[in-house]
C-alpha cells in the first residue's frame, strides 16, 4: 500500500476545499446546474435517477483496512448502508445528498482517499493487476507505475479537458487481469532480453457503442521514458480527437480513422520533441516503490496441514479453495478471491458490515492489503494457507464465500435501469436470474470458466462486448429486449463478441444462456473452455439451439 506523504495529503485537502466552495456557490444559487455539472463530475458526483451518486476512486484497486472501514462508515452514515464496486475498481454510493458531499470528501481525505477525476473528460482512475505484489507471474510491480500515473494525471494542466474520458490500465503479467486491450491506453510491462524494463504500449481500445481492441503502437518503450510518451499520446489526442460528436470522441475513433501506423508515427514525432525532463527521475520512482510498505513473508512449508485437513473434512471449504484461492508467489501463502456475486445478489454490491468483515480479515490475516478487481470482486492478496479456513469461515458468516470465481454466476453487470438514467433495460435482475439458473454449484463447476457480462444500454458499462457471453439491453417500443453476443474476451486474447441473432425478450434471456451452456457442454472437446469451443465451432450451433425454441 502506497503511503501518502504531506504533499499528497495537501493535494487532497486543497481539492476538497475547492469543491466545498463550488458546492456552496451552487447551493447559494451563484452557479447554475449547467455551470456546476462539469465541476461536480470532476469530483465523481453524478445526478442519477433518484439522487446524487458519488464515485470514489480506488486507485489501481488498492485499499487498506482503515480505508475500507471508512467506506463502510460513509455508507452507513450518508447512504443506505451499502456501496457498489465498479468495473473501474471504484466504489459508488447511489443515495448521496449534495449538501453532504463536501463533508464526505473530507472524511475520504482523512484516510488518503478522494473522488478526483472519477468522471468527466479527463484521465480517470488508473487500474492495475489485482494480484500485483502477490503473483509469481509478474515482471515488475505494476502498482509502482500506476501510482506514478495517478500523480501525473491528477489535475494535469494540459489534459484535463480532453475530447472524452480516458482510461489507462497497467499490467505486468502474461495473463491479463486488467482488460488492458479495452483501455484507451493499456501498458504491459516487459523485460527486454538484456533485462531492461519497458512497456508494450497499446492504444485505442474501448467498448461503448463502437467496440475496438487496443492496438500496439510500440512494442518496447524504455520504462523511464513513460511519462514523456504518455504526454505525446495525450497531446496528439487532445489536439486531434473529435469534439463535434460525443460518440466519436474517444481515442479509439482517432486511432481507427488515422490507422494504427499513422497514429503511431504522429505520437513518435511529438515524442521526439518533448523534453525528457517530463519523465520521472529514477529517485522518485524509487521513492514510490519504497512507499509501498514492503511485505514480510514467513518461511513456510509449501503444504499446510491445517489447510489440507479442512479440505478433507469440509467439502464446502474444498469447493471454495478450488475456485477462489489462487497461487501466491511465496510458499505457504495464497491469494483469496472474495466473490461479490452471491446468487441472487446485485453484482458488485457490498454492505457496510461485509466491508468491515473484509477489513478485519485483511488486518488480521492479510497484511492489511485489499484489492478491488475490474470484475467487481475483492481480493485478499496475501493470506497464509494455514489461515485460509478461518478466513473462509468469517467470509461465509456474511455471505461472502460464494465459490464461483470465473464461473457462470460471476457476472459483471452495470447498474442498469434500476439506477441509471441512461439505461434502456435492467441488468441486475437479468444477472440474478442467470445466477439462479446455475445455483447448482456442481453444474457450474462442470461448465467451468465462463464470463457473462451485461450492459443495460449501448454505453457498455457492463463490458458486454468482451463477455464470453455478452448481453446488451435495448429498448424496443418501450419493452426491454436483449441482444446476445458470444466469444468476446477482455483478457490477453481480447476479442469483440459475435452477435447471436435477433434480440430476446426479458423473460427469455436466462433460458437462452442455459441453452447456450448446454450446447457448449455437448460440443466441448477435451475440457475446452467455453471460449475455445466457440472459437472452434463458430456461432452456428448456438444460434440454432437458441432460436430452435422460438419456432
Amino acid at each position, binding site marked *: 500500500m502506497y503511503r501518502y506523504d504531506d504533499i499528497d495529503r495537501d*493535494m487532497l485537502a*486543497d481539492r476538497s476545499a475547492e469543491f466545498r466552495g463550488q458546492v456552496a456557490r451552487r447551493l447559494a444559487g451563484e452557479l447554475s446546474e449547467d455551470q456546476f455539472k462539469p465541476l461536480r463530475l470532476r469530483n465523481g458526483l453524478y445526478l442519477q435517477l433518484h439522487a446524487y451518486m458519488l464515485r470514489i476512486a480506488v486507485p489501481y484497486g488498492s485499499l487498506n483496512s482503515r480505508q475500507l472501514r471508512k467506506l463502510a462508515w460513509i455508507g452507513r452514515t450518508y447512504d443506505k448502508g451499502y456501496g457498489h464496486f465498479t468495473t473501474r475498481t471504484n466504489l459508488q454510493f447511489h443515495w448521496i445528498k449534495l449538501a453532504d458531499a463536501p463533508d464526505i470528501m473530507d472524511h475520504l481525505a482523512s484516510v488518503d482517499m478522494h473522488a478526483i477525476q472519477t468522471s468527466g473528460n479527463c484521465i480517470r482512475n488508473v487500474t492495475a493487476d489485482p494480484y500485483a505484489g502477490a503473483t509469481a507471474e509478474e515482471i515488475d510491480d505494476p502498482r509502482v507505475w500506476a501510482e506514478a500515473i495517478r500523480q501525473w494525471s491528477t*489535475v494535469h494542466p494540459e489534459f484535463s479537458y480532453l475530447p472524452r474520458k480516458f482510461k489507462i490500465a497497467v499490467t505486468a503479467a502474461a495473463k491479463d487481469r486488467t482488460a488492458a486491450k479495452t483501455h484507451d491506453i493499456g501498458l504491459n510491462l516487459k523485460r527486454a532480453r538484456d533485462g531492461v524494463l519497458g512497456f508494450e504500449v497499446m492504444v485505442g481500445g474501448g467498448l461503448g457503442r463502437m467496440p475496438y481492441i487496443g492496438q500496439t503502437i510500440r512494442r518496447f518503450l524504455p520504462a523511464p521514458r513513460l511519462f514523456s510518451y504518455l504526454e505525446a499520446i495525450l497531446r496528439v489526442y487532445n489536439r486531434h480527437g473529435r469534439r463535434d460528436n460525443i460518440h466519436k470522441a474517444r481515442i479509439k475513433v482517432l486511432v481507427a480513422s488515422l490507422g494504427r501506423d499513422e497514429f503511431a508515427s504522429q505520437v513518435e514525432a511529438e515524442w521526439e520533441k518533448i523534453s525528457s525532463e517530463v519523465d520521472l527521475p529514477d529517485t522518485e520512482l524509487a521513492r514510490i516503490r519504497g512507499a509501498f510498505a514492503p511485505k514480510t513473508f514467513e518461511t513456510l512449508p509449501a503444504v499446510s496441514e491445517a489447510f489440507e485437513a479442512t479440505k478433507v473434512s469440509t467439502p464446502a471449504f474444498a469447493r471454495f479453495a478450488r475456485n477462489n484461492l489462487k497461487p501466491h508467489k511465496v510458499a505457504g501463502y495464497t491469494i483469496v478471491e472474495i466473490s461479490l456475486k452471491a446468487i441472487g445478489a446485485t453484482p458488485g454490491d457490498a454492505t457496510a458490515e461485509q466491508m468491515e468483515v473484509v477489513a478485519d480479515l485483511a488486518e488480521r490475516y492479510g497484511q492489511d492489503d485489499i484489492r478491488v478487481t475490474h470484475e467487481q470482486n475483492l481480493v485478499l492478496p496475501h493470506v497464509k494457507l494455514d489461515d485460509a479456513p478461518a478466513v473462509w469461515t468469517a467470509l461465509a458468516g456474511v455471505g461472502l464465500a460464494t465459490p464461483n470465481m470465473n464461473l457462470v454466476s460471476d457476472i459483471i453487470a452495470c447498474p442498469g435501469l434500476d439506477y441509471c438514467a441512461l439505461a434502456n433495460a435492467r441488468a441486475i435482475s437479468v444477472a440474478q436470474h442467470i445466477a439462479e439458473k446455475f445455483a447448482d454449484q456442481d453444474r457450474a463447476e462442470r461448465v467451468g470458466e465462463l464470463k457473462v457480462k451485461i450492459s443495460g444500454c449501448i454505453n457498455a458499462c457492463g463490458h458486454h462486448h468482451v463477455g464470453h457471453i455478452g448481453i446488451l439491453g435495448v429498448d424496443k417500443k418501450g419493452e426491454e429486449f436483449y441482444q446476445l453476443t458470444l466469444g468476446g474476451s477482455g483478457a490477453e486474447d481480447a476479442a469483440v463478441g459475435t452477435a447471436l441473432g435477433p434480440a430476446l425478450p426479458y423473460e427469455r434471456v436466462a433460458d437462452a444462456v442455459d441453452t447456450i451452456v448446454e450446447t457448449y457442454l455437448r460440443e466441448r472437446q477435451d475440457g475446452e473452455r467455453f471460449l475455445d469451443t466457440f472459437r472452434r465451432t463458430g456461432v452456428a450451433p448456438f444460434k440454432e439451439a437458441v432460436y430452435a425454441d422460438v419456432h
Partner: protein
Amino acid sequence: MPTFISLKDGVFGLAEDPFTSVGDDQGVPPGDVIISLSRFQAEGEALLSQGRAVGVRLESHEEVEALAYDLPEISVVALAFPKFGDGRAYSYARLLRERFGFKGEVRAVGDVLREQAGFMIRCGFDAFEPADGSTVEDWERAARRFRHVYQRSTDGRAPAFVERGG
C-alpha cells in the same frame, strides 16, 4: 477602454486593453488590433508595416504551427475557448511557449471561467478575458488553490517529485 486580467511577473492585475478585436466582416480600425488567422495571413504584413501591434486570434480547430514563422512579429496570440470543455488551447499555449519560444502575450478568450484559471496559468497563458464576471481576486485565489503540483509544465513550478528531492 475594455479591460482584461493580466498576469505579469506572478502578479495579477486589471489591465486596459490597447487592442481592438476585429471580426472578419469588419473594417480594420486604427491602432493595435487582434485579427483572425486567415486575415493575418492575407493582411498581416501590410498591417505590421504600418507600425502597429498586431495580435492573432486562433480558433480551437486551427493549427498553432501555422503561426510559427510569424511569431516574432506577433504581439498577442488570443486562443479561443469556444466552450469551457474544449481543451485544445491548453496544448497550443504550451507549444507556443515551450516549442516556439513565444514571449508575447497569450490570451484566453471565449468561454473563459475562473475554474480554468489554474490550468491556464500552468500552460503559459498570461492574459484572460473572463466570461463569468470573475474578478482579479477570484483569479488570484484560483491560482493559489493548489500548494503543490505533480507535473512539470510551462509555468516552471517545481513538481512534487522535485520538492521531495530537495
